[in-house]
């Protein structure tokens, strides 16, 4: 691996991370706000109360601004796949083709048709048709997210496919296995429910600003009630799906799980680190595996979370490196053994292609047999040091704990918001209103942290166990990657500033004079 141009790999990764993170600033608000608006419009439809129409139209305006600024920012990622990550794109091509094509067609038709009705259709189509359109925008935008997340789920847990050594592509064997893989299902549910939570916090935060300024009080209280009920339900669902994800990760990506918890040596009855700070040094000598300066551990909870058994064995980084036997008695080979199997698979692929060229049927068949036997660990063949397969532990650990900690705060925020609204004391709770406003950036930090856990925690893999990130990059000029990195930084920062400015202006105008 040392022959790789690390500068090219690092810049390509930085560029992809930058664009994905900026893209994800816009997406969660769209996903969640669409449902909150649909609920508000449903109340208007049911009650005929014009106040609810005004509320719906105001939040629809903010939804429209966010949607418009964010639309097509994801296309940049597809540009990058084709240019910077061509080995990877080729390798996964057939798997990604179907979900992404469905996403493209669905997004185009659902959004272009029903968003137009949402914004242009007031008083032009029936109330019922308008309401249906609003719900279809909410469902459609979330279905678009489904296909992208299914593709991402496949990268974390490649199932339902077979590698074709003639084309060097993975081919889909079972669409339903790809779609309903536990990784994809948990990823989708956890991601969208966290997006709904973010949108609920956004509504509560903006409404709190009105209450702090003593403006549009009735409007703000009504908005808070809808958002807090919605947010409470979705944040509980986020906790539940996160819990399911943890059980799935410990099975399919145990190294990521160990990194999330900073668990170096596994044990039976493992404790969960509720709070911890890592030191700058490492007793083991491995810079990636820093010691804890301080940690508060809840005994047995990690074992329970991972296996629903408080005494179960949870493997740590060193166990995975050295090989271990899991709770079902399955033996997991050491990373060194996997490296040997991966090297056999790579050599077999090379020999297979050579045999084809020389029309040596016997060598082709024997090579194919070796490839199939060892393909499961194909990607390990590119490593020499077993510790190369350990993700960056500090960043994974902190991102995970920031996400979980903030998630707990959001739950409390929703409960308090409801309590204070129903007790009619929310206007006087200035500390709470300020905390609610500050929770808007915190929701974005939690959301981004979730993605950092998912993507940094699975390093060094771009496709789990099959393709390391280092092997996925195209052999292109690093300078062009650097130029486009800064171009994206400028373009996306410009978009974000524009969004914030236009939104703040509409928020200041308020629900009485805005709308569309």
């Amino acid at each position, binding site marked *: 691996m040392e022959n790789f141009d690390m500068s090219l790999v690092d810049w390509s990764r930085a560029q992809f991370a930058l664009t994905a993170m900026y893209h994800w600033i816009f997406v969660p608000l769209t996903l969640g706000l669409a449902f909150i608006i649909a609920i508000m419009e449903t109340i208007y439809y049911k009650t005929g109360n014009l106040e609810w129409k005004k509320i719906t139209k105001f939040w629809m305006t903010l939804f*429209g601004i966010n949607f418009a600024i964010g639309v097509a920012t994801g296309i940049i990622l597809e540009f990058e796949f084709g240019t910077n990550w*061509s080995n990877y794109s080729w390798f996964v091509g057939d798997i990604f083709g179907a979900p992404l094509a469905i996403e493209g067609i669905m997004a185009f038709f659902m959004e272009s048709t029903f968003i137009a009705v949402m*914004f*242009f259709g007031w008083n032009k189509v029936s109330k019922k048709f308008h309401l249906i359109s609003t719900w279809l925008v909410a469902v459609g935008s979330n279905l678009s997210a489904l296909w992208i997340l299914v593709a991402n789920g496949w990268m974390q847990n490649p199932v339902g496919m077979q590698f074709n050594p003639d084309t060097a592509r993975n081919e889909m064997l079972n669409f339903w296995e790809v779609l309903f893989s536990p990784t994809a299902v948990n990823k989708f549910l956890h991601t969208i429910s966290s997006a709904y939570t973010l949108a609920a916090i956004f509504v509560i935060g903006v409404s709190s600003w009105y209450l702090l300024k003593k403006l549009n009080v009735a409007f703000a209280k009504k908005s808070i009630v809808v958002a807090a009920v919605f947010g409470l339900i979705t944040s509980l669902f986020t906790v539940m799906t996160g819990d399911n994800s943890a059980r799935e990760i410990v099975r399919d990506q145990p190294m990521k799980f160990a990194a999330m918890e900073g668990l170096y040596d596994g044990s039976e009855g493992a404790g969960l680190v509720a709070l911890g700070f890592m030191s700058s040094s490492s007793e083991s000598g491995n810079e990636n595996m820093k010691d804890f300066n301080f940690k508060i551990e809840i005994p047995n909870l990690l074992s329970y979370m991972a296996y629903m058994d408080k005494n179960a064995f949870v493997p740590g980084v060193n166990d995975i490196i050295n090989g271990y036997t899991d709770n079902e008695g399955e033996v997991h080979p050491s990373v060194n053994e996997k490296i040997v199997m991966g090297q056999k698979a790579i050599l077999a692929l090379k020999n297979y292609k050579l045999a084809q060229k020389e029309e040596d049927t016997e060598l082709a068949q024997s090579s194919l047999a070796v490839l199939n036997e060892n393909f499961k660990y194909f990607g390990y063949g590119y490593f020499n040091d077993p510790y190369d397969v350990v993700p960056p532990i500090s960043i994974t650990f902190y991102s995970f704990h920031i996400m979980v900690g903030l998630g707990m705060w959001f739950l409390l925020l929703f409960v308090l918001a409801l309590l204070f609204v129903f007790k009619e004391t929310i206007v006087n709770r200035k500390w709470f209103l300020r905390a609610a406003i500050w929770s808007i950036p915190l929701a974005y930090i939690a959301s981004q942290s979730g993605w950092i856990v998912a993507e940094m925690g699975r390093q060094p893999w771009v496709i789990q166990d099959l393709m390391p990130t280092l092997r996925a990059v195209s052999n292109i000029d690093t300078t*062009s990657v650097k130029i486009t990195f800064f*171009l994206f930084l400028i373009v996306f920062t410009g978009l974000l500033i524009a969004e914030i400015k236009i939104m703040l202006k509409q928020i200041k105008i308020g629900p009485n004079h805005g709308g569309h």
Partner: protein
Amino acid sequence: MKPLIILRKIWFFYYEGFVHQKEWSRQVWFIIILKLFIMFFILKFFFFPNFLKSKYSNDKDRGDYVIEQLTNPK
């Protein structure tokens, strides 16, 4: 209803929607168009050619290139 009348209604639906837009809506449309121009006519055109398609004319050559990349250290 005749298809032509339906098309006419759809046309006026969009036409009136765009004509009677609020200021924020005009601003975001300007941003959308500018963004799409930058993405497709500058970034895609000058900086993001499809690496394999620009180097090889058929899938077999592309596959062989990727296998070469995967099986030989650089």
